[in-house]
């Protein structure tokens, strides 16, 4: 009785597995078989224009508009803070680290960058001018609002 009910389930499972095998292609490896070595794409060239990019949404961590190759961010030193810290911006003209980054999790303002904000590249990253691996349909708030108002009134403002 139980075995009989299990059989269609097993069949369904097998069919989904085989489907996954045929469609699942790793974006980095392409269709290279598992035992072969894939040829990795050429390393990107990080943009170095020093032009601030817009944020896509209000809480987005700003992207880094310059190269950060070999920047040391560890227990000894933080190369980002070396220019972006509160005390260095007069000389470096860098964007100062905002006050929120000096707050610890209890909201206490500290003298230096809070340890939980110390590793800058956890949130802030440089950008490469490359073709995205997957299509992105994301619209920011303004674009979405504009599109909906066009749909409602039939004309753009």
């Amino acid at each position, binding site marked *: 009785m139980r075995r009989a009910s299990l059989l269609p389930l097993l069949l369904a499972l097998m069919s989904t597995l085989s489907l996954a095998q045929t469609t699942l292609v790793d974006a980095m490896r392409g269709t290279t078989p598992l035992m072969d070595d894939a040829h990795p794409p050429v390393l990107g060239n990080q943009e170095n224009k*020093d032009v601030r990019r817009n944020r896509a949404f209000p809480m987005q961590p700003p992207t880094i508009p*310059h190269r950060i190759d070999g920047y*040391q961010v*560890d227990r000894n*030193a933080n190369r980002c803070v*070396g220019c972006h810290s509160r005390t260095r911006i007069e000389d470096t003209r860098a964007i100062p680290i905002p006050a929120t980054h000096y707050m610890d999790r209890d909201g206490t303002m500290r003298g230096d960058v809070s340890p939980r904000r110390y590793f800058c590249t956890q949130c802030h990253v440089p950008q490469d001018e490359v073709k995205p691996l997957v299509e992105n349909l994301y619209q920011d708030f303004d674009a979405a609002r504009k599109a909906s108002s066009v749909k409602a009134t039939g004309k753009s403002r």
Partner: protein
Amino acid sequence: MVRRLVELLRRYWLVVNRPSAYFSLAFLTVGGFIAGIVFWGAFNTALELTNTEPFCIGCHEMRDNVYVELQSTIHYSNRSGVRAKCPDCHVPHQWTDKIARKMQASKEVWGKIFGTIDTREKFEGMRLELAQHEWARLKANDSLECRNCHGFDYMDFTRQSPRAVQQHSTFLANREKTCIDCHKGISHRLPKMVEVK
């Protein structure tokens, strides 16, 4: 004791002071000249031998610490394959400055013999002090070893990023700052920077 020493010196002085009885003047002058060339050449050859990268990384202190750190930086690996070797940055190219630095380096021989940095922990413990020595040296000579390759007059600001132009055209141009003031830790890892005075 002192009297015997003075007596010995006096005897040698008499020997040296007396004209040669066996060798001709030509032999002594020409021979001395040739011997001088040989000694000078040998001295410089030995000096240049200590100025090579295989000599520097002949000790594990350099090979396992600073040399490894150099390898991931732009001064070792880059698109054009031009690279800086240890003495390019750490030994002056001018002869007199080089001899002065080599004399200072006798302390490094001392450190090698007595194992001042013969473990990773000892090296990390000394990193701040060692780095500060190099920063002080480069600050004092206006980053001479940087400028041996990187000439300010040949910098094309239009090929630099705006942020680099902003720094180089102001602080570097008016000599308020020198290379090492901003470019610390470009070839080796930085020490604990909060302890830098």
